[in-house]
């Protein structure tokens, strides 16, 4: 269950543009050595150049920055670790645009370019006074072919013995290509369309897979889950290619046994069939996925803890207390709900949101709350609607006291809470869905 050792290259350079050619050469050559395609390597290098240049312009030559380039298998991550000082994170907002006549903001253009050329941006503030800015660029993979694979219903008679095990790469790719033959595209995440990517995800140690086999080693189903990423891990499946209920149950049992002594505290699936696997999971709540034809698909999120709940404190705005009390009572989760409201203290002028894309859904999270939170959120919503994204979610971390001030903004912006995800952040997370994007639920 340990995270496999990834190749890492680190270097520490003075914050001077004189060092830029050295740094860029390392990034580009390393990305190619980590099997990233030339096009993606070029984008990553471009983003790296913009961030380094911004830091060099904002810092002094006496300062240094530590950079770590990691091969995550299916992605490359570039961390910049530097002393904590004013870095205008506003540029990382997806909705950001810069007026070229505004000289005060010209230096942010580089960060804007960087934000647009990578897939994910992560920012961490270290208590020791340093800050880590991470750029993540995914590798590209060819799409799998949905092969005319013979259905396996006849290959697993009721009296045959099943076994459940971690697959080799070929079986894993075959499993990925079988899923679309049995399930609609809304029922599985997009990465299953790229079998090579799934192999690299599992090889990286960030994901794990269990497949079910019959006595002749036909693949009867399987399940993939993430691990070592968050305390509450998400799983995808079980996908069963046969009517025998023992297949899905056996896969789930095996998965739970694998995770039983792991660092994970819970396991969830955001897209389960209602009522299925009730003996293993609790229902968190529902979301509503608007399909391109306007019809609405209800999705049920299921969850279970892997250990005994130790109880915890959560922080929220008074406007959300009633909802939390009701939900925590329903879920039998012992929580002390504490109020967190602004009392006139200094607030950031600007807010920063990050957006994660998955098929037709977007999930927003807040990196920095600020005075322009509502206006900035509105800009994001307008941008997503222009791009015809209909399913917009927001994850609010109840363990981060400062996020509580987002509650009035979210409620005023037509976001409604869908459910609580226990221990999905620093503590529990509330998932909100933007109501104007839910078809007939308006």
């Amino acid at each position, binding site marked *: 269950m340990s995270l496999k050792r990834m190749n890492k290259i680190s270097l520490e350079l003075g914050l001077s543009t004189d060092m830029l050619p050295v740094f860029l050469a390392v990034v580009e050559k390393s990305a190619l050595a980590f099997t990233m395609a030339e096009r993606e390597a070029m984008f990553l290098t471009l983003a790296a150049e913009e961030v380094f240049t911004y830091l060099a312009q904002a810092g002094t030559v006496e300062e*240094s920055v530590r950079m770590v380039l990691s091969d995550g298998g299916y992605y490359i991550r570039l961390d910049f670790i530097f002393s904590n000082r004013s870095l205008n994170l506003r540029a990382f907002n997806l909705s950001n645009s810069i007026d070229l006549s505004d000289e005060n903001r010209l230096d942010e253009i580089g960060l804007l370019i960087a934000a647009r050329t990578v897939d994910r941006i992560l920012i961490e503030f270290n208590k020791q006074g340093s800050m880590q800015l991470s750029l993540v660029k995914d590798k590209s993979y060819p799409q799998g072919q949905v092969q005319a694979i013979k259905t396996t219903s006849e290959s697993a008679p009721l009296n045959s013995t099943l076994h459940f095990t971690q697959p080799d790469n070929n079986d894993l790719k075959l499993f990925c290509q079988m899923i679309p033959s049995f399930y609609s595209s809304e029922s599985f995440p997009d990465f299953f369309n790229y079998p090579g990517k799934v192999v690299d995800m599992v090889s990286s140690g960030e994901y794990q897979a269990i497949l079910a086999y019959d006595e002749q080693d036909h693949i009867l189903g399987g399940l993939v889950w993430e691990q*070592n990423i968050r305390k509450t891990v998400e799983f995808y499946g079980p996908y069963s290619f046969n009517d025998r209920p023992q297949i899905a149950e056996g896969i789930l049992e095996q998965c739970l*046994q694998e995770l039983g002594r792991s*660092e994970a505290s819970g396991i969830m699936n955001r897209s389960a069939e209602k009522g299925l696997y009730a003996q*293993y999971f609790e229902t968190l709540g529902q979301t509503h996925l608007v399909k391109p034809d306007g019809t609405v698909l209800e999705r049920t999120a299921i969850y279970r803890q*892997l*250990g005994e709940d*130790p*109880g915890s404190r959560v922080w929220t705005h008074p406007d959300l207390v009633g909802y939390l009390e009701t939900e925590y009572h329903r879920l039998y989760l012992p929580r002390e709900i504490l109020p967190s409201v602004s009392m006139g203290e200094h607030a950031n002028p600007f807010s920063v949101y990050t957006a994660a894309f998955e098929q037709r859904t977007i999930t927003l999270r807040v990196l920095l709350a600020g005075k322009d939170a509502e206006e900035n959120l509105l800009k994001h919503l307008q941008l997503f609607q222009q791009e015809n994204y209909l399913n917009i979610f927001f994850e609010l971390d109840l363990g981060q006291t400062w996020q509580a001030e987002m509650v009035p903004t979210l409620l005023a912006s037509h976001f409604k809470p869908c459910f609580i995800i226990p221990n999905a952040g620093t503590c529990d997370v509330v998932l909100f869905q933007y109501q104007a994007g839910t078809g007939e639920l308006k």
Partner: protein
Amino acid sequence: MTINPLETLVPSYINTFNAYIPSKPDPELKKLFGCSTLYRLNNNENPLGPPPAVQEMLSRFSPPRAAIYPSGDSYYLREKLAEKFKLHPDQILVGNGANEVITFVIKAFCEAGDNIITADKTFAVYEWVAIFSGYEARLVPLKEFSFDDEAMLAQVDERSKIFFVCNPNNPTGTYWNHDKLCAFLDRVDGRQIVVIDEAYCEFVDKEDFPDGIALIDRYPNLVIFRTFSKMYGLAGLRIGYLAGSLEVVNIIRRTCVVYSVNTLAQEAAILALEDSNHIEHTRQLVHEEKAYLHRELTRLGLSFVMNEGNYLMVRLPMSDTLAYRKLMPKGVMVRTMTGFRFPNYIRITIAPHEAMEAFIRGLEAIL
């Protein structure tokens, strides 16, 4: 400025290891779950407490003695144990609970690249100590809830150093009988250390249950763990021990942290060994309440695993962790078993009838 992240100092096997978080103290749990009483059925403690003579000794312990170091190697207790088991005192090492002696053995025999072999669904500490010490733990699936001797032997390679067998097994209560244990030791033929953890042996009254300590002369590679935390009711004082051949124990002693066992624990353990009535009373309680639970769980239509030891496992038609959260407000604390790789099972410690009734009432209410 030079930035040196902490993670560069930490071995990779520590970076990926998760700390075990014990449950909170009773007052905190009662406040958290809103219950006025709490039956702790989660740790397999003896509900009768320590033997009466030990309780009396604890009540008259002179406070100034707390300023004096204890015997560094539990001198008198080792003499007492040696007399009881007909061993030399140097064949015994006492630790701060059996958990500590697990660490002694692994440190004594393993180095980088080595592995230990145990079961996947057993007491977790063998596996944990191996992993956070940087060694591989080879986990063999149980066979019909019991340690699988053949599969364990099949896992051996030239870097295998120690077998850990929990006998009877926690949490399934199954055991290897005398013949099976001897056959296993014969097959190992001294090539590895074989640890038999007999933490619950005093609860077993079956004739074919092996006395591991009596086999040490015949098998010098055999190490036996025992504890005062279960039958003897001294869990709060933390004291356990190992016994083995002089040759093996002399090696383990090199990794043994002396002075780790306090004075109260040593003196309480000596007195506890003298009280055989306490074992009989406890066995009687366990026997009667197991019979009660057998009837009630059958009536409720639940399947359960009830073998040796002062515990049993119940399979629930719901998540064990949800059952825990639902039972806690009713004042019943059980052990969830997903962490033992038994999803949807809970483990119950046998306790006085009042607690067992509260458990059954709680279970009926949540099902």
